[in-house]
């Protein structure tokens, strides 16, 4: 049973990718519908298995660590698998309607989409450093391809820039992996942890960790390494932007977080943790500030991603040399932040796409009067914004609450100020958009109405982001399930 | 009868309160106007037919309501009911103006407040009725809508609001000192309260605005001339007395000797009685003269009040005198005000009769023998008799009273003089005439059947002053007649010199 689930998660997406490579856009869409159905069921199945029995290690094909493919299937991983299923299906369904099927190169959307999904699952479940690298590369390359689908010169320029950043990041990460392997002779994270527990640390692995985290931070677009993100996310097609912002950047962060939680206590130090935290804070402030200044709707949303990603890096200081309960609070907070940001940002990009489609311009001030004609998409945008502003009862609020508790509990109150300021700044750039949409200018009565299915999808995502706050306890409880240790190396 | 009286009391207050509701129907204003004299009738019956001593508990009202009747309140209720009835009759003939509906509503509200406050015993409803009367009274004053009326209204309102606030603060402090919501508990508690002087000051000032205490009187001479005549009559006859009643029911009479406050009140009364006369004789408009006359008369009552404050033993006696004086002054002043609006008939005989009827209430104010004024003046004299008062200023009171009497007559003469220049020959609307005649009758004749009490002060038959008393009443009148004659001569000389 588990074998089928694992295979379903990791390899069927590859199969869909190959299949869609052979077909045109319309057939690709049909294949994708089937694929989405399968993926959603498989993801749910795995989630249920873990929810009932707890997490476990799984050696794919029977080859375990140190050389084989080792999968770590715990609550966090399956939660993200499920999240991916939700967001990717939404984006896929939306893209099927949204993307113009008459342009020939658009048919490559489907294979790229499936490669991306497969890579994401690989990252969530990966238990060793090299497999994580493979998954990461798969993600990066397909993401670059998706950006390039935009077709025009700007899109190409942005995708090249993205590619360079991604490669540089991968290089740094790979260097770190090599150092670790040289030092410990294993690539399994769990193996390294075992080794570290019994030996005192030296400077080498610390450098490796720093390299890996830096590389991943570049891929996650942490300030000041964020410059590649806004053009790429802003210029891509809306469903692509949604995928990129919601999931792709999270993958590299996920690896960084896993590494930090595993090695941070022994390899990291206070100054490094605080430094990362400060970079995260700077991202929050600077990203929000720049979002306020943008004239293009999707640029606002893209810079908002820069800011929201900043919150994630508060994980580093809030889990370093603090009590277990506070560390747990911080981890839970960050997890919720990842989930709620993924849902909300996807909803927001999709809704923004609808809005742009209907007013025929991507400028913020072109939205005047749209609240009269397109309230549904605007409403989705607004609900997603509630989560981004981390206002209750959204998942974003739950995340912020936990992070506030963690920062106050650990005595690092300055992060609390960052959290609050970030919330206010996000309100500043989001309400700029609402404000524009409420303006009544009599001449703007010409609107294109997108089809209902385009409008429903972002709404579903936004409602999920909003409702997350009410079920956070349940979501977090799956993560806290006992971990079956017998499969561990 | 014990069941009927509370019912009648509620009816007396609620009937005028129907007017704002009736006003919602646009075409009922004629009916409302004709019903004006009917509004105070339940109150009139209540005052005439019932004895004092009933109580009506209304526990759901405000902070717990209690309405009741005693002799003093009955007298004030009667005065209020009679005056508003005759003024109402008069108003039916007088009113032919735009905004009749508005006037009727204000009239009803003011009346309800004025009637209610005489019966209310709990602080909440007393203050409510008082405020209702104050605020609705504004509508009567500015009704004519002239610039002058608006100015008078503004002054009235500013002072009234200040007064209300002073009362509010005073009552709050007093109620908290007494830990009770009933007026009847206030005097006892006040006598012992640590903040006694502050409370007394606040209450005196607050009610003093209504009662025309010197320096708090500015609105009176402005408001009376500009208000419609029936409104001036009730303003001066009844509403001004509400301030007096307010003092009587809140201040600690009979509990403790407040000689300081007594002296201040006596001084204030003297300044009011004489100062108002000096200012009054300089006025050119008849109703302004009457307004000053009211201030002057209130000064005399304040004089008695001061004595009562200073001497707790004498307070009960003085209370009945003040009640009597208020009744007398209210009725007489009411008829004087109403006379300002009548026209002289064409015939010679009719003119003479009219002039006599105009002059008689005025002379009654001045204490003309065989009038209510004579009785009131004598009772006041007896009440303030030096040897029965335990008060430092007692010796100054008789000359002050004499001066007050002179001032009264001078003002009446001045009124008649200014009126003679203004009265025109013409036809009186029947209702107007009826109202005025009823007022004069009430003042001159019906007064003698009213339930005032002068037991032990003036011997019966009260309308026949003893011979030594006649002289006491008459010589001040002679002095003022002489003064008036002098003024007339001077005036004639001046006018002949000018021509």
């Amino acid at each position, binding site marked *: 049973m588990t074998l089928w689930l694992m295979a379903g998660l990791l390899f069927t997406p590859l199969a869909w990718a190959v299949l869609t490579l052979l077909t045109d856009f319309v057939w690709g869409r049909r294949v994708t519908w089937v694929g989405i159905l399968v993926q959603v069921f498989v993801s749910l199945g795995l989630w249920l298995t873990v929810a009932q029995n707890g997490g476990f290690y799984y050696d794919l094909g029977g080859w375990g660590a140190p050389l084989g493919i080792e999968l770590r299937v715990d609550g966090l991983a399956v939660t993200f698998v499920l999240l991916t299923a939700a967001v990717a299906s939404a984006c896929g369904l939306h893209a099927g309607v949204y993307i113009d099927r008459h342009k020939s190169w658009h048919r490559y959307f489907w294979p790229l989409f499936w490669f991306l999904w497969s890579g994401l699952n690989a990252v969530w479940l990966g238990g060793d450093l090299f497999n994580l690298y493979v998954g990461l590369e798969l993600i990066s390359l397909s993401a670059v391809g998706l950006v390039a689908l935009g077709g025009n010169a700007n899109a190409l320029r942005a995708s090249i820039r993205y590619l360079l950043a991604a490669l540089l990041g991968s290089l740094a990460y790979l260097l770190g992996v090599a150092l670790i392997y040289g030092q410990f002779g294993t690539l399994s994270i769990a193996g390294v942890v075992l080794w570290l527990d019994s030996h005192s640390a030296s400077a080498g692995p610390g450098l490796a960790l720093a390299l890996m985290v830096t590389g991943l931070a570049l891929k996650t677009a942490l300030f000041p390494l964020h410059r590649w993100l806004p053009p790429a996310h802003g210029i891509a097609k809306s469903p692509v932007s949604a995928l990129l912002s919601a999931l792709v950047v999270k993958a590299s962060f996920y690896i960084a977080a896993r590494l930090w939680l595993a090695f941070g206590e022994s390899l990291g130090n206070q100054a490094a943790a605080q430094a990362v935290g400060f970079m995260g804070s700077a991202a929050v402030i600077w990203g929000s500030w720049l979002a306020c200044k943008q004239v293009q709707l999707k640029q606002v949303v893209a810079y908002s991603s820069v800011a929201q990603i900043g919150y994630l890096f508060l994980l580093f200081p809030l889990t370093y040399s603090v009590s277990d309960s506070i560390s747990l609070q911080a981890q839970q907070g960050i997890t919720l932040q990842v989930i709620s940001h993924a849902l909300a940002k996807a909803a927001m990009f999709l809704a923004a796409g609808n809005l742009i489609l209907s007013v025929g311009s991507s400028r913020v001030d072109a939205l005047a009067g749209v609240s009269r004609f397109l309230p549904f998409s605007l409403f989705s945008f607004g609900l997603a914004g509630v989560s981004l502003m981390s206002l*209750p009862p959204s998942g974003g609020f739950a995340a912020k609450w936990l992070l506030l508790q963690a920062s106050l509990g650990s005595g690092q109150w300055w992060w609390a100020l960052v959290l609050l300021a970030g919330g206010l700044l996000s309100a500043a750039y989001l309400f700029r958009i609402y404000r524009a949409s409420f*303006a009544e200018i009599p001449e703007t009565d010409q609107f294109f109405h997108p089809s209902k299915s385009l409008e429903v999808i972002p709404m579903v995502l936004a409602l999920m982001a909003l409702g997350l706050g009410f079920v956070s306890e349940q979501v977090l409880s799956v993560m806290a399930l006992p971990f079956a240790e017998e499969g561990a190396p | 009868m014990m069941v009927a009286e509370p019912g009648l009391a509620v009816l007396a207050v609620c009937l005028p309160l129907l007017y704002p509701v009736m006003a919602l129907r646009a075409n009922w204003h004629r009916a409302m106007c004709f019903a004006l004299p009917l509004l105070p009738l339940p109150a009139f019956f209540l005052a005439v037919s019932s004895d004092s001593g009933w109580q009506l508990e209304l526990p759901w009202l405000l902070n717990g309501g209690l309405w009741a009747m005693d002799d003093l309140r009955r007298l004030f209720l009667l005065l209020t009911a009679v005056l508003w009835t005759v003024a109402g009759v008069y108003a039916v003939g007088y009113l032919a103006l735009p905004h009749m509906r*508005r006037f009727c509503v204000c009239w009803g509200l003011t009346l309800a407040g004025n009637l209610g406050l005489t019966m209310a015993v709990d602080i909440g409803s007393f203050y*409510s009725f008082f405020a209702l009367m104050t605020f609705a009274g504004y509508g009567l004053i500015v009704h004519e809508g002239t610039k002058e009326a608006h100015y008078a209204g503004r002054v009235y309102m500013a002072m009234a609001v200040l007064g209300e606030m002073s009362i509010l603060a005073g009552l709050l402090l007093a109620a908290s000192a007494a830990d009770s919501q009933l007026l009847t508990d206030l005097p006892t508690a006040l006598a012992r309260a640590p903040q006694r002087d502050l409370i007394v000051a606040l209450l005196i000032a607050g009610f003093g605005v209504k009662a025309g205490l010197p320096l708090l009187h500015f609105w009176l001479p402005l408001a009376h001339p500009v208000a419609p005549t029936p409104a001036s009559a009730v303003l001066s006859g009844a509403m001004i007395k509400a301030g007096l009643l307010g003092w009587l029911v809140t201040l600690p009479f009979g509990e403790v000797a407040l000689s300081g406050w007594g002296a201040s009140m006596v001084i204030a009364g003297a300044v009011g009685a004489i100062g108002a006369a000096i200012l009054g004789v300089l006025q050119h408009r008849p109703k302004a003269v009457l307004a000053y006359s009211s201030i002057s008369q209130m000064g005399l009552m304040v004089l008695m009040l001061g004595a009562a404050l200073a001497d707790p033993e004498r307070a009960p006696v003085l209370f009945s005198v003040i009640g009597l004086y208020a009744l007398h002054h209210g009725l007489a002043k009411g008829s004087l005000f109403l006379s300002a609006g009548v026209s002289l008939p064409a015939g010679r005989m009719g003119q003479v009769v009219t002039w006599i009827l105009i002059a008689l209430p005025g002379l009654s104010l001045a204490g003309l023998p065989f009038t209510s004024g004579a009785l009131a003046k004598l009772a006041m004299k007896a009440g303030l008799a030096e040897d029965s008062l335990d008060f430092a200023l007692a010796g100054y009171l008789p000359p002050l009273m004499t001066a007050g009497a002179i001032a009264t007559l001078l003002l009446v003469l001045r009124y008649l003089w200014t009126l003679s220049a203004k009265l025109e020959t013409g036809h009186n609307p029947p209702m107007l005439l009826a109202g005025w005649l009823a007022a004069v009758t009430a003042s001159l004749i019906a007064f003698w059947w009213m339930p005032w009490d002068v037991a032990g002060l003036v011997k019966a038959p009260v309308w026949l002053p003893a011979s030594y008393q006649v002289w006491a009443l008459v010589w001040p009148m002679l002095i003022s007649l002489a003064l008036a004659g002098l003024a007339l001569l001077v005036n004639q000389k001046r006018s002949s010199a000018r021509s």
Partner: protein
Amino acid sequence: MTLEQWLPVFALMISLAASLVIFALPETGYVRRTSVNLGAAVLKLVVVIVMVWGVFHGVNYGVSFTMLPGVTFVLRADALSMMFAGLSAVLWLLTTIYAVGYLEDSPNRRRFFGFFSLCVASTMGIALAGNLFTFFLFYEMLTLSTYPLVVHRGTEKALRAGRTYLIYTLTGGAVLLFAIAWLHSLAGDLSFRDGGHFVDADPDIHRSLILIFILLVAGLGVKAALFPLHGWLPQAMVAPAPVSALLHAVAVVKAGAFGIVRVVYDVYGVEASSALGLLAPLSWLAAFTILYASTRALWQVDLKRRLAFSTISQVSYIILGIALAGPLAAVGGLVHLLHQGIMKITLFFCAGNYAETLGIHRIDEMDGAGQRMPGTSVAFTIGAFGMIGAPPLAGFITKWVMGSGALAVNMDWVILVLVGSSLLNAAYFLPIVHRLWFREVKGAWPEERHWGRLETSPWLFWPPLLTAVVTVVIGVLASLPFSPLSWAELIVLREYAP
């Protein structure tokens, strides 16, 4: 779940569901929209009445579940919640009726009514919240759902006002969140409890408690428009009249004041807050706000702006009453929560009627409006006198009880504040009343509309008249059971003898 658990949820869900249904209905289906709206409002009123009856007889309504690790979501009905819930239920019904008439033939009605219901759902949540966390949840929801109402007109001025509104309220919300989180990390998940939690708090945390209290009051004070955090309110006056009515009379400002009451009573406890020395400064601040805002009101020429400053002043009465730390004064403050709501909504309805029927916005245009619109003007007059505190209207009851309460705890200076405020109120309301009734009409009205027999549309005519009657009735019959005064006494009784 039992009925005791269901009712609060149900009360909350009614307006929420109404809001969703309204959003789902098409813009043109106004008959359906109106029936949904009115039906929901009536239903909610019935539910609230049932709950009021239950709470009076000691039934514990409540439901809770864990939302986050260590944090519960609690809905609970006690006497204080029912006071606010009752106010919001009654005024929601009236305001809905009014708004239907007011927005006749104007665009974006679906959006308006949808957010309107959402806003009411938030107030319901605020009323029923059983701990600070839940309170905050709905407090922020209120901010969000009122923004679209403030900017409803979509004019430049409205948008600017909306921005000011947000800057104030969201910053306040952030401060509040910080304080709540701090308190949570200090003392855990505190549900509201009569008598509070900190009666014998560890002296070590006194400093933190004081700081948290200041932050809490600052955060809540924004909505309660405490000086100097009141700047948003006069600007928000650009909103349509029903919104001003609801915002000012019920939802936003009251939410802030209600929150302060909750903090003082049910989180800290009166005893503890006064032992920490927190209440005296709060009372000075409230007293200053009362006088300051009334003074500012004198200079306003726009009717609604004058009313807005009056609101700022009046809401501080509630806080003053609480801060005096005496049972009787607290009754005065709490009862004003209802009294001010009813009176102020009357005034705003009337202001809306003048604007909608005659096109009058400025006070100097109001000359003689009483002859053209007697019903509305009667209501306005009653509301204005109520605000001044003229007996026997609702405002007088507040002043009297609060004054007595202040004297009972030897705070005599409060009398000066009450008197001063009444004088100022008189100074800015009486000239309006004078203009209404005793000035002659200047000429043609700016934009007159006719409705036949009544002076204005029946939807607009009856609500203010009704609230005016209520203003008189709750004043005159203040001592009846279930009157606002009696209910406030019940609350205070339970607080002081838990």
